[in-house]
């Protein structure tokens, strides 16, 4: 198996895929207005024509490098390219104003590289163990895990928990549309052939994330047509770049703590890079000998937030490939990608598909290191990318989205689905309804429903509550679900 892994990794496809992922991720991350979720969903169709190991190495490279690219914009022009870089923007931009912008970028480069690589190792070591746990899973457990994923992502994403849960339910409902798996009965299709076999996942994803994003950007029309150049992008950087050995050694506890925080936050379904970054930031501040510097240009702060947000990437893939529960919004999109390639999360990933899975994980670790190296070479120039006018970006994104959505099945109907979901996605954002739970619901509906129905069969006539409580893993899951639903409730009552 390791021979296969090695040959996968050194194949031309994988190397090109990794370079595309790293450079693409840098550019997309640096561009304010584009984010990793969108990039990954756009590029899933491309993975069809190449080996799955190469394809997913590319997607995961984009995932981790996009956070790094976003931080570069955050530091230099005070505009985080991705929400996860917002914590870095604070101290990073302060350092830029002090003329130490390059130092900040150097710190980011090292920190992102370390955070990402550590999470890759966590992925490598923890996943096989967790996958064995999944062997103990039966229908009831899968049902509860699906519900757990939805409650967490509904409760944490975008503030209002009620809206989050509503959107999760909406996603589940969308998943029921089409032919029922067991009886073949058509549900909610209203005679429309296009959705008779269910809503095609990738076009819906692309529509909801990419097309809606282009529409959101159009809201700033009046600003855009002024064709302003973003301030700060012409600044010539000079001075110290990489942190010295002494500084690095002093920061080791920070690196370790932040990586661990990042990986754990990543594992928690629903919590993404931004939460990891802020949590790590506040922990670093508490542990720091110079807390007053935080917010005014502290390299420690950048180290903390950057290590954590990249550590989230690997962490979020852990529950994804072992239990099928994505640890973040991007991971949800990756889940869609895996399913479409016929790779089912769970123990299978480490037995039948082991060589592909390990190729992807090790490729991910390598990509993080490559990111660090590439960053050291070209980071200071990357920010110029932010000046690319939306006038050019918008049509290109639309073209890419459309062709990507089409290429999957060669079906024009998928494009109309993409448009419909683009519209739905746009209005959801207008009304502050989070989109991630909907996609997750759509993805997890088969798991949830079959788990639910099969559990009834397996209970063999026992009352369902008794059945669920008789299984230890189920009890743990039920407690966790209850906690996730109750904690927003407590917050709400506390506010009153």
């Amino acid at each position, binding site marked *: 198996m390791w021979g296969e892994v090695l040959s996968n990794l050194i194949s031309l496809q994988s190397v090109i895929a990794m370079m595309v992922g790293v450079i693409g991720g840098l550019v997309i991350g640096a561009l304010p207005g584009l984010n990793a979720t969108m990039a990954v969903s756009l590029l899933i*169709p*491309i993975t*069809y*024509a*190449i080996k799955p190991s190469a394809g997913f190495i590319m997607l995961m490279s984009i995932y981790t490098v996009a956070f790094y690219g976003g931080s570069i914009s955050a530091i230099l022009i005070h505009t985080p390219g991705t929400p996860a870089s917002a914590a870095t923007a604070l101290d990073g931009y302060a350092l830029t104003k002090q003329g130490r912008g390059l130092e900040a970028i150097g710190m980011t480069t090292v920190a992102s590289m370390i955070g990402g690589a550590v999470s890759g190792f966590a992925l490598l070591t923890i996943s096989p163990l967790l996958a064995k746990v999944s062997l103990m899973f039966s229908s009831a457990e899968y049902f509860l895990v699906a519900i757990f994923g939805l409650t967490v992502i509904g409760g944490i994403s975008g503030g209002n928990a*009620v*809206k989050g*849960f*509503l959107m999760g*339910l909406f996603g*589940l*409902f969308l998943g*029921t549309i089409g032919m*029922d798996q*067991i*009886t073949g*009965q058509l*549900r*909610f299709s209203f005679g429309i052939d296009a959705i008779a076999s269910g809503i095609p996942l990738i076009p819906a994803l692309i529509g909801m994330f990419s*097309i809606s994003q*282009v*529409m*959101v950007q*159009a*809201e700033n*029309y009046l600003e*855009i*047509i002024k*064709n302003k150049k973003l301030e700060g992008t012409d600044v010539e950087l000079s001075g110290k770049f990489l942190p010295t050995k002494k500084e690095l050694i002093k920061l080791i506890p920070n690196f370790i703590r932040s990586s661990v925080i990042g990986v754990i936050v990543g594992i928690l379904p629903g919590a993404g890079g931004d939460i990891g970054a802020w949590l790590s930031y506040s922990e670093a501040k508490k542990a720091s000998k110079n807390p007053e510097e935080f917010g005014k240009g502290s390299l420690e702060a950048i180290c903390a937030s950057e290590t954590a947000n990249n550590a989230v990437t690997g962490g979020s893939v852990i529950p994804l490939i072992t239990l099928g529960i994505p640890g973040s919004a991007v991971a949800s999109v990756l889940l869609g990608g895996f399913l479409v390639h016929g790779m089912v999360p769970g123990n299978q990933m480490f037995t039948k598909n082991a060589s592909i899975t390990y190729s992807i994980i090790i490729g991910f670790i390598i990509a993080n290191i490559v990111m660090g190296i590439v960053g050291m070479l070209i980071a200071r120039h990357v920010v110029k990318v932010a000046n690319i*006018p*939306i*006038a*050019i970006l*918008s*049509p*290109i994104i*639309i*073209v*890419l989205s*459309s*062709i990507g959505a*089409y*290429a999957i099945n*060669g079906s*024009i109907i998928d*494009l*109309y689905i993409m*448009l419909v979901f*683009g*519209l739905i996605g*746009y209005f959801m954002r*207008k*009304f*502050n*309804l989070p989109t991630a739970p909907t996609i997750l619901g759509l993805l997890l509906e088969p798991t*949830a*429903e079959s788990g*639910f*129905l099969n559990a009834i069969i397996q209970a063999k006539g026992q009352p369902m509550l008794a059945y669920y409580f008789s299984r230890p893993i189920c009890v743990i899951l039920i407690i966790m679900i209850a906690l996730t639903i109750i904690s927003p409730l407590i917050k*709400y009552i506390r506010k009153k």
Partner: protein
Amino acid sequence: MKKINFKTDTYLGIVLLLIGTFFLKQSFQLRESTSLFPKIILSLFILLSIILIVTSLLSEVKDSDFKVSEIKYPMVIFILCICYVVGLQMIGFIITTLIFIPAVMLFYRNNKKILYIGCTLGTILFMYTLFNIVLKLQLP
């Protein structure tokens, strides 16, 4: 008695409630085994939309108002997208994209003519090579 104001979220909740009820009614037309899961989901959906209505009625925080003027430009983009898809269906990739990219750039009042030609040709060439030659996937 606290002041009750109707806010965006309130209207949203009402809309969601109506949608949920509509589909719940639909689900009663299904056979029993297939309708179980949807019925549960939709019932929870209706419950939560009522909670949304109630909490937003009681909340004192001002919601962001939904202005119709805000969606004008995004709608234009959306209509352009529809035209693009229809074009792809009827005319095919190369010609439709040839028209589409400059159209959007025009919409955003980009003035550099070179960019128009460069980007359009560049994108078409890039997509063509990528999809047809490298990846061997179909183009419309």
